[in-house]
């Protein structure tokens, strides 16, 4: 034993101290992690095991004034993917290829979404609004590929499709910047928000609160059980003043015109309710929610967000003449019986101003002047009443300023006259008066402004700030928020002047240029306009209001067809359809079809079209 002398025991002690020190370090580290930092690690473990499947709250519905839903929700199946924790990139590839085959999509983009989900450790929607047969096939995938699951949720649905598109708007995905701003409000990266119109303006009201299921998942992303269920809160419903029948007539009417471009607005002259607002070309908001990225892409590319009805400023042309007439008659500068000889042109200071009827209207007084829209009559009248008075009346009718309807991108048009010129430090010439008197020159108006002015012609001076929301019915039980129209200003004119103007506008429709809007059994009063346009074909205008005999007028309309040519032939039929829809009347001029043939299949048979003469 102990062949080599004494054992160096002190070396053993050093070794033991080293071991004890290492044990102490490990013990301290364990205490730090398990006692001091335990809460943080527990949170991380909780994040690991639970995953949230969000369920979109059904968005608030939008109803028209009669309770017809114009934007609602439909149940839709969505394919979601919950990324597992220990998932590697190469595992995703077969899944992406399988899904691409089932969904008929590009495997590359699918793989990209899957990878993003893994990277951000959050669930993604791979496909939305799946058809039922795909759904059954996909539910089999669930058993093969962990993490893939199907959920039912509410998806926005617009039952009328292309209907008041610019007013209602559409739903779309957020950009990165917008998402960062909205994130604190509970939006998720794949949330859709209102992109235009009411969907955008009332986003907060319509949205509701998303709910969700907190699920326990394992490391592969397989669902184990539901830990927690958070119910969603539906959004608040919005009731519009829009009449879906009038709106549809306006949309379809404008779409059917020669150029298919323009705007139409209808209001109720009694209270300022907006009955219809159409802008063409429009779009189908359902297309943005399509699962086919190609369809969404083509819709986005062809999208015209420009709302002609409020953002398009056009010269009003002859539709401005009733206002000129009212100014002249009310100021007493012109008597209704005063007649003017129209040779087809008008000389002023060596310049010749033409009447649209180059042959001339011969001798015309107020009634025929307006009914035939004689330019020479209005040149003369304009000079008599003066530019300043016309400008004042136009301003009283709300032209040249914003109506302040709560919609984005409204334009105020441009009113010109002696006063405006003076402010700008420029002089006013008689030639300007002539241009103003026939609604040309620098004067531009929007269809909305003209509809409101037409309403004021119908109700004798009440210029409304229109409302388009009747009420918002809150989902959380708050009292309904009711919105009222506002009387913006009143045009003061003599009663006789109103009588004369309204009578003359009725004559325009009954026997003048506006015959295209004639409807037996109704009092229809209007004015056509063919606005000269330096950029191309004339714009076609028609303003009109209508009433049942013995009742006040209940609809005032302005229709504009861009480059539509003659107002009487292009714009007036659109307005006529809107009036018929408003009064719930069948089109007496249309051939009677059996009720069953509701499908819009135009019968290609020759039929007499009793469209009254192509006069204006």
């Amino acid at each position, binding site marked *: 034993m102990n062949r080599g002398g004494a054992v160096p025991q002190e070396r053993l002690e050093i070794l033991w101290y080293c071991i004890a020190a290492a044990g102490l*370090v490990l013990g301290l580290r364990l205490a730090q992690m398990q006692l001091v930092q335990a809460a943080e690690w527990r949170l991380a473990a909780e994040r690991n095991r639970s995953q949230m499947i969000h369920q979109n709250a059904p968005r608030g519905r939008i109803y028209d004034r009669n309770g017809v839903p114009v934007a609602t929700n439909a149940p839709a199946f969505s394919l979601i993917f919950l990324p597992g924790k220990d998932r590697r990139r190469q595992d995703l590839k077969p899944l992406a290829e399988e899904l691409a085959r089932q969904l008929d999509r590009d495997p590359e983009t699918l793989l990209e979404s899957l990878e993003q989900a893994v990277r951000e450790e959050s669930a993604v929607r791979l496909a939305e609004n799946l058809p039922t047969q795909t759904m059954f096939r996909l539910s089999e995938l669930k058993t093969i590929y962990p993490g893939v699951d199907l959920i039912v949720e509410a998806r926005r649905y617009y039952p009328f499709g292309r209907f008041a598109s610019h007013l209602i708007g559409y739903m779309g995905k957020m950009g990165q910047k917008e998402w960062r701003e909205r994130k604190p409000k509970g939006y998720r990266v794949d949330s859709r928000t209102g992109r235009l119109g009411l969907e955008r303006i009332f986003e907060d009201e319509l949205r509701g609160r998303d709910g969700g299921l907190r699920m326990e998942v394992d490391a592969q992303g397989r669902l184990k059980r539901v830990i927690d269920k958070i119910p969603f809160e539906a959004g608040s419903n919005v009731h519009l003043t829009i009449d879906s029948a009038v709106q549809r007539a306006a949309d379809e009417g404008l779409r059917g015109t020669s150029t298919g471009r323009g705007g139409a607005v209808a209001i109720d002259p009694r209270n300022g309710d907006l009955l219809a607002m159409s802008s063409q070309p429009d779009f189908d908001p359902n297309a943005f929610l399509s699962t086919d990225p190609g369809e969404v892409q083509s819709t986005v590319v062809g999208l015209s967000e420009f709302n002609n009805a409020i953002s398009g400023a056009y010269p009003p042309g002859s539709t401005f003449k009733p206002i000129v007439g009212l100014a002249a008659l009310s100021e007493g500068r012109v008597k209704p019986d005063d007649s003017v000889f129209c040779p087809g042109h008008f000389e002023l200071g060596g310049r010749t101003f033409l009447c649209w009827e180059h042959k001339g209207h011969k001798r015309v007084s107020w009634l025929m002047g307006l009914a035939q829209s004689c330019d020479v009559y209005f040149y003369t009248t304009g000079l008599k009443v003066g530019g300043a008075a016309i400008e004042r009346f136009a301003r009283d009718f709300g032209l040249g300023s914003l109506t302040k309807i709560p919609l984005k991108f409204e334009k105020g048009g441009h009113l010109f006259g002696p006063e405006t010129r003076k402010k700008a430090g420029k002089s006013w010439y008689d030639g300007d008066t002539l241009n103003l008197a026939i609604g040309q020159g620098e004067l531009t108006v929007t269809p909305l402004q003209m509809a409101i002015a037409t309403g004021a012609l119908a109700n004798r001076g009440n210029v409304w700030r229109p409302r388009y929301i009747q009420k918002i019915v809150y989902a959380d039980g708050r009292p309904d928020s009711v919105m009222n129209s506002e009387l913006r200003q009143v045009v003061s004119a003599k009663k006789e002047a109103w009588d004369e103007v309204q009578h003359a506008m009725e004559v325009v429709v009954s026997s003048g240029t506006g015959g295209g809007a004639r409807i037996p059994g109704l009092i229809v009063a209007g004015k056509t306009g063919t606005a000269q346009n330096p950029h191309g074909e004339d714009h076609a205008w028609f303003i009109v209001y209508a009433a049942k005999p013995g009742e006040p007028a209940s609809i005032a309309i302005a229709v504009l067809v861009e480059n539509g040519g003659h107002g009487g032939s292009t714009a007036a039929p659109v307005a006529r359809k809107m009036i018929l829809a408003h009064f719930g009347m069948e089109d007496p001029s249309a051939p009677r079809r059996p009720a069953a043939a509701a499908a819009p299949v135009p019968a290609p048979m020759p039929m007499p079209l009793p469209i009254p003469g192509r006069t204006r």
Partner: protein
Amino acid sequence: MTMARAVRVQSGLSGRVDWTYIAAVAGLIIAGSLAMLSAASTTSFYSSILQKHFIALTLGITLFTLTLAFNYQVFQDQSKFVYALAIVIVAATLILGKISRGQRSWIHLFGFSFQPAEMARTLVILALADFLDRRARKIGDLSTILVGLALCGPVMVLVLKQPDFSTTLTFVPAIFGMMFAAGADLFQLGAIFGFGGVAISVPLIYTICQVRYPLASATSLPGMILATSRMGWATLAAIGIFCAIGFLAWRVASWMRVQVKPAAFAAIPILLSAALLSGILVHRQLKGYQRNRFVSWIAPQSDVQGASYNVIQSQIALGSGGMWGKGLFSGTQSQLGFLPERHTDFVFANVGEEMGFWGTSLILGLYMVLLWRIVAAARQARDRYGYLVCAGLASTIAFQLVLNVGMCVGLMPVAGVPLPLVSYGGSSLLVTLWTLGIVANIYARRYALL
């Protein structure tokens, strides 16, 4: 009469057995089995794991008792056979072994699979103890260290060939510990293991630079460090700097009138340069997965789904256990499969999650008791051989503990070293119990009488 005598001898042995030590081993086996069985309960081959574990446990306890029964000095007497056995089993593994996970480290015999590397380690410790014991009079010679290393070298190289880097690594503290405890010259020991240490840390530093500063320019410090790995002017410059350091140290030492041989200062640049050059060679030989393990240790947040996933999940499991744990069979990290290798290498993290600080400190405490008793056995061993065997085993078990627990708590790289007695692994359990049986034997025979 004979009966009574037999009983006395029996009680004589039992009176000499270290019951504290036995209790620590038993406690570790019980706590480890509980944790391991809970962690493995979600795996698809649970019943097979149960079966294998209890067979290995029964065999291991039998082996422990058997080893206790005969005098340990037989290992020293048969030292040549012990050493030959070590070489044979690791060589046989390389020839007969089945490849699993890229390693040829398992040998299949009579329907049992067996991992010989750990057994080879104990055999090497036994052989080295005998060698160091024989060299007792020349223990201070450099030849002792070099021949000792040459003795262990072949086995380590064969294990590294499997390739099993982490098991090879566990040989190093045992060898160092034994040479240190035997009384080898500290300067020589320091120079040789220092050289090895620097040579290993050089690729580590390169990897740190590559991972932490992937965009470092050539003029920045990490860029300049990386430049030395290309064996060019930068490498020469580094060697020049080492020479300057050695010269400066000599000047400072002589200025301070420190009495050290000038040769010691010449050793500094030689040692550093040689270590740098070997380190560069190792760096170039390093395999991708080994580099990944370094990376996941250095920068665990850099790729959560990749190599460092294990480290983070293990820390989450351990930390979330808190004081009392989530209860056996109810840890979310392990039962839902987030914790990888949860019944083998990361079983300690499962203990932390399901039994909390209470469980981890119990296991750590039992380990410290175990190591304390092994050191006590070394202290009281009847001969130098027993002393050296115990010192070597204490070093290697402590190193495994530090590596495994350090890995679970994020202080050490993912090394793939199991926690002896706690991690699942039949052959590991068997070999560990046999090894611990030797220690018990040495302690029980501390008096030269028996």
